[in-house]
């Protein structure tokens, strides 16, 4: 465990060192959140409710979704691809700890920093827009659990995508595709409840909703306590499934690399 703690620290320091990357990413996300905020605002001046969502709920959703999206925002696919090309990856694989564990704890360290920074920014925006009226103790606690599990789901998905980099050099394309896929299907841009019929059904059976939609719905109270429990359980199931899939694919992918020197 001590070994992994060192990686948490390492990830944290890494986050500090590359803060400009993180800040740009966060600002880009933030602009998107602001744009969506005003789009919805103009929509709700014409009608009271859209698919059961009122302006009151939407105001919260936009910002909470932004918070969930910003935590754990740095993808590690590009980093891994670079290490594969250079041959440094072999140093990671030789270390006496699990490769995936190392990645995870490193991300955890960075995520801690990201969470703190985003929380201050979005917390103040949220409070100035919504005030304290919608907050509730139990829901916030459940939200934090769900947010943490959502990070787990996101990590598993990123890990599987990062394995693709063992087969292709196009890490930029892989990263972009993963980002767009998760943004679209996780509810980062629009609540999944607004998806049209068939798509809504499909999304239900995908793991992506656990990343953003589930924690958001728990926080803003669209899910009852019982529903929240069920969806948290679903998140855990997805983490196990994707985790197993990751190990399986990992075994294959590690066999592919061949290196000159290193």
């Amino acid at each position, binding site marked *: 465990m001590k070994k992994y703690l060192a990686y948490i620290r390492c990830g944290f320091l890494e986050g500090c060192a590359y803060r*400009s*990357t993180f*800040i*740009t990413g966060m*600002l*880009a996300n933030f*602009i*998107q959140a*602001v*744009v969506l905020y*005003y*789009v919805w*605002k*103009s*929509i709700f001046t*014409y*009608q009271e409710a*859209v*698919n059961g969502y009122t302006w009151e709920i939407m105001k919260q959703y936009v910002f909470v979704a932004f918070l969930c999206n910003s935590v754990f925002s740095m993808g590690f696919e590009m980093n891994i691809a670079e290490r594969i090309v250079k041959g440094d990856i072999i140093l990671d694989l030789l270390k006496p700890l699990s490769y995936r564990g190392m990645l995870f704890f490193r991300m955890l360290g960075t995520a801690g920093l990201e969470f703190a920074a985003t929380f201050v920014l979005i917390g103040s925006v949220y409070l100035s827009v919504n005030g304290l009226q919608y907050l509730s103790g139990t829901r916030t606690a459940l939200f934090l659990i769900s947010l943490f599990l959502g990070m787990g789901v996101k990590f598993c998905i990123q890990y599987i995508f990062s394995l693709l980099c063992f087969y*292709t*050099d*196009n890490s930029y*394309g892989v990263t*972009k*595709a993963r980002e*767009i*896929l998760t*943004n*679209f299907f996780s509810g980062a*841009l*629009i609540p999944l409840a*607004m*998806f*049209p019929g068939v*798509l809504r059904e499909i999304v239900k059976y995908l793991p992506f909703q656990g990343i953003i939609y589930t924690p958001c719905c728990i926080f803003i109270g669209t899910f009852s306590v019982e529903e929240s429990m069920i969806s948290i359980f679903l998140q855990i199931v997805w983490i196990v499934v994707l985790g197993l899939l990751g190990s399986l694919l990992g075994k294959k992918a590690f066999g592919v690399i061949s290196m000159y020197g290193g």
Partner: protein
Amino acid sequence: MQKYGTYIKLYIMFQVQNIKSLAQYRTDFLMMVFFTLFSQGCNLGLICIIYSNIPQVGGWTMWEIFLLYGFLLFSEGFINFFFQGAWKITNMIHMAELDRFLVRPVPVGLQLLTAKIDFDGLNKMVIAAAVLAVGFGKCEISWDVKKVILLLVFLAEACIIRVCMIWIASCASFWMEGKKNSLNYFVISLGEMAKYPMVIYPPVFQGIFGYLIPYAFVSFYPVGYLLGKEGTGAGALGIPFFCVLMLAASCMVLRQGLANYESSSY
């Protein structure tokens, strides 16, 4: 005049060399085509999903929003394909690669603009053209020769304004210490705002992204004018003015920046 003819010839030669260098990444190119199609599809899908729930945003229908999107995407593809070098300035300054350019008897600006090519841009322009075609087909516009010419002029102006935006943001590296200059990413991210009509934003944002970073002149005013929206006539007249202003600013920034440039190499 002959001088400019030579520059254009040189530009074409540089770009042809760039295209040749791409031949070694053939699979990556195909993957990029797929990823771009996929991501633009998702973006348009998002607009469709929003509109499947509601009839209009700020008085604009879905097809009209598609036109805004088409203008933005087209200008983005244009930068990627023709002037992708504008993105590379930051890195070149940091790695002192600029020194190489300074000693050649060709204008530095020309060399910087052709420093890189991104074939994905062509892809984006094709998608954007398709989106525009569909959008214009669904919107009722009485076309005549004047409007067709205006459309082409507007598109060209949108491209120029956006190239200048990236150019100026990248050139800020001349004055910034350190490796990273995130300003150009920031400018690109701001484009997100121009995907929707400007009227939905509060006055402060309208001021910032209408005039300080003139995105309104890339998508909102030209499309609004073509569609005959209220209050866009004056703005459409302002587009050439902003175009010239941005071009002048770009030239000035490059000149000042080069005067200020200290190579980091030894």
